[in-house]
């Protein structure tokens, strides 16, 4: 039987070392809890490093009229009445404090001429409030957060793939997984566990996410009975690279259109006036994504199945000054000089608004001792995410989750996971290695990604969704027979096998929730139900594990109170 090579004890175990996990670790360490934080990639290299545009806070450095209330109103409106106002209010009120803290950790933001933090305009924000460090905001954030965890002697273990949570009744008491470099099975005993594993856009064929974003946290939580929410809400960014194939999905930032970039179909027609005559290329993300998608489906797409994004009419100096990373990206990845040539783009799966349902005041899930924070959680963004709000969420709620988990953990008796459960869970890791024959994990992964792209993509229909679900079920039936060769040491095929297990849960939940929501709202667009129907559908779709797969039900969205109630149409 599979046995752990080592057992690591802690008060608080944080799964995920992106922005959310690291900020939680700092809070947990400051609260005096013995904290272990881990990620499945190298320390400091989590997906968060890719965040380019910036982080929102109503500092009012450029537009003094800005306030937390306007920020909250913008967020609620972009979320099309699906966000939890309590979470939104807290985030917007505390955002300036979070930025100030990040500065005290040593982050250096770009400056205004009078020495304050610079703030740039971003789509659908009333005022300029996106603080940034060039186009490398996430990188700087990750640097300083890692430094602060290390300064506090936090135990940061990298390249550990956690596969399952351990429970004692309804209480989460740890997790199991394997160390990639050492090739060893590990057991973690913890009085509290925080999931900060990020999103799952990797479950789509074309996506902007890092390798690690396969919905592991969602799957782990689901298996121990946590409630998932808003899974149908997956944001497609309108512009991702499509050519060459090895660059497919890489993000082409919204600033390209912000600086004046125009969209053309293969016939050379500027098509946005047809879809949004007022806001044109700068319309909401979901509108632009659908417009591009339509053009391609109607046969007006480019050779590689995209449309043209063009900045050649802008002066070359402006492009080089305002969009240096994009200029470099296209030159290096596609051999295209964007000052002279058009960019070929198409929508790319980008961000999961849905995730684990959490308590607004503590980030607790419905499972005792299990917390969730960051992209893996739900509540802030509702039907659509306002650009720059994710990084804010990581900091504000990372802190809250870390504090709450530490406070909870310090009152608990030591965790004593059941040895048999540990063995069972560990056996799931080693089983594919022991099989003599079976299916290739990469093959199943590609089938999931193809099915999601085709059936649960930018535009959805009942038939398409049902086909996707059938395909996912077929893959699910094959998953127990995946075969992996080699050992436990840095085995990429084994990682893929575990990814498949996790992606299947996140993917199926997404498809089922999308089938259930018979209307269109934000990122979720049903061709067969194109209208938004607040009368029936101002509800959050929640799901959890039942005897026969997903149990699905709806909760009414909490009605805003206090100052927000006055600011928002309901």
């Amino acid at each position, binding site marked *: 039987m599979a046995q752990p090579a080592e057992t690591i004890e802690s008060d608080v175990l944080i799964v995920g070392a992106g922005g959310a996990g690291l900020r939680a670790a700092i809070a947990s360490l400051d609260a005096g809890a013995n904290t272990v934080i881990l990620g499945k*990639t190298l320390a400091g290299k989590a997906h968060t490093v890719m965040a380019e545009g910036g982080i929102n806070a109503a500092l009012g450095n450029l537009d003094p009229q800005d306030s937390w209330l306007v920020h909250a109103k913008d967020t609620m409106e972009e979320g099309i009445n699906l966000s939890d106002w309590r979470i939104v209010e807290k985030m917007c009120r505390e955002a300036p404090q979070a930025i100030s803290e990040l500065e005290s950790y040593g982050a*250096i933001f770009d400056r205004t001429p009078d020495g304050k*933090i610079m703030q740039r305009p971003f789509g659908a924000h009333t005022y300029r409030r996106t603080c940034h460090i060039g186009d490398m905001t996430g990188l700087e954030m990750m640097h300083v957060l890692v*430094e602060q965890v290390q300064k506090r002697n936090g135990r940061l273990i990298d390249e550990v793939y956690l596969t399952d949570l351990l429970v004692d009744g309804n209480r989460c008491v740890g997790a199991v997984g394997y160390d990639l470099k050492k090739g060893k099975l590990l057991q973690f005993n913890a009085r509290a566990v925080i999931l900060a594993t990020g999103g799952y856009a990797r479950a789509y064929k074309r996506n902007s996410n890092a390798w690690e974003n396969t919905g592991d946290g969602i799957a782990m939580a689901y298996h121990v009975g946590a409630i998932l929410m808003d899974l149908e809400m997956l944001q497609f960014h309108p512009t991702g690279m499509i050519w060459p194939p090895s660059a497919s999905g890489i993000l082409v930032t919204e600033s390209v259109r912000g600086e004046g970039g125009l969209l053309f179909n293969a016939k050379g027609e500027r098509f946005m006036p047809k879809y949004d005559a007022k806001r044109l290329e700068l319309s909401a993300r979901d509108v632009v994504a659908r417009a591009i998608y339509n053009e391609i489906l109607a046969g007006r797409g480019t050779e590689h199945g995209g449309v043209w994004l063009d900045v050649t009419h802008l002066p070359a100096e402006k492009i080089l000054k305002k969009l240096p990373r994009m200029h470099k990206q296209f030159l290096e990845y596609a051999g295209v000089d964007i000052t002279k040539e058009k960019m070929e783009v198409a929508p790319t799966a980008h961000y999961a608004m849905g995730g684990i349902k959490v308590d607004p005041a503590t980030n607790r899930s419905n499972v005792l001792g299990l917390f969730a924070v960051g992209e893996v959680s739900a509540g802030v963004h509702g039907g659509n995410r306002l650009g720059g709000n994710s990084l804010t969420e990581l900091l504000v709620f990372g802190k809250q989750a870390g504090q709450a988990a530490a406070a909870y953990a310090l009152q608990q008796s030591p965790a004593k996971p059941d040895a048999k459960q540990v063995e069972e869970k560990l056996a799931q890791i080693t089983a594919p290695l022991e099989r003599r024959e079976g299916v290739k994990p*990469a093959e199943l992964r590609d089938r999931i990604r193809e099915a999601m792209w085709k059936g649960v993509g930018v535009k959805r229909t009942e038939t398409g969704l049902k086909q996707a679900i059938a395909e996912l079920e077929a893959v699910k039936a094959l998953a127990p027979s995946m075969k992996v060769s080699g050992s436990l040491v840095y085995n*990429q095929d084994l990682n893929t096998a575990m990814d498949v297990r996790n992606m299947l849960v996140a993917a199926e939940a997404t498809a089922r929730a999308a089938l259930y929501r018979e209307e269109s709202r934000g990122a979720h667009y049903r061709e067969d139900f194109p209208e938004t129907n607040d009368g029936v559908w101002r509800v959050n779709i929640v799901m959890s594990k039942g005897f026969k797969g997903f149990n699905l039900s709806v909760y009414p969205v909490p009605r805003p109170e206090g100052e927000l109630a006055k600011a928002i149409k309901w």
Partner: protein
Amino acid sequence: MKVRVYRSDARQRDAKLIAYDVPYTKGMRVLTALEFIQEHLDPTLSFRWNCGAGQCGSCAAEVNGKPVLTCKTEIREGMQDLSVFPLKVFPPVKDLVVDFAPAQKKLKDLRAHFTPAREKKPGEFYRLQEWQVQAAQEMRKCIDCFICYDVCHVLRDAPHLNFVGPRNLVKAAAQEFHPLNVVNRAPLVEQGGLSACNVTRCCTESCPQGIQITQNAIIPFKERVISSKDPFEKLLKKVLK
């Protein structure tokens, strides 16, 4: 196209170069070729990557003798032969995967975190001018890919000198140049073997982020070390205090 990849385990038993036939497609990256091998020819091949977009620094390896980010490096049309080796100077883990832990450990001695004169009040914001922050911001572009270690003569030829390495100096400089920093890291980097570096600029030329490592991190530190030893400057500092 033939792609030769270095294969070994941590103890370097049976280390060997294996040639794989990989079909060329236009625009292909070295990382794409490695993925193809792993998925179709040999599932046990190990290499690192995460963002696939040149932003996380996970995927560095030596391609035809030159260290590069494999996700960013295009295989040119007509190229027949490609060899891929792990980065040198790091303990091997498996195939192209190496262990950066020793380098990370040395960083600890450089106090590579923000060290201001006083704690900031909650909700307070700094006032800093653009010109004050530029030097530090350049250092913060580092994506920790460790390509600079692979080309560093000191690390390659004189491991006994225990040099902290270019990337760690960049990290130290990122803190040293923060306009509000009060810690002098000159003695720390000196202990870290700074004097062994004879400024051949190899690290600078290999940096995928274009950081002027030699000019803007190493030389300023060298100057600080010298001036902290200069008897005249020492006296001046005492008087000023």
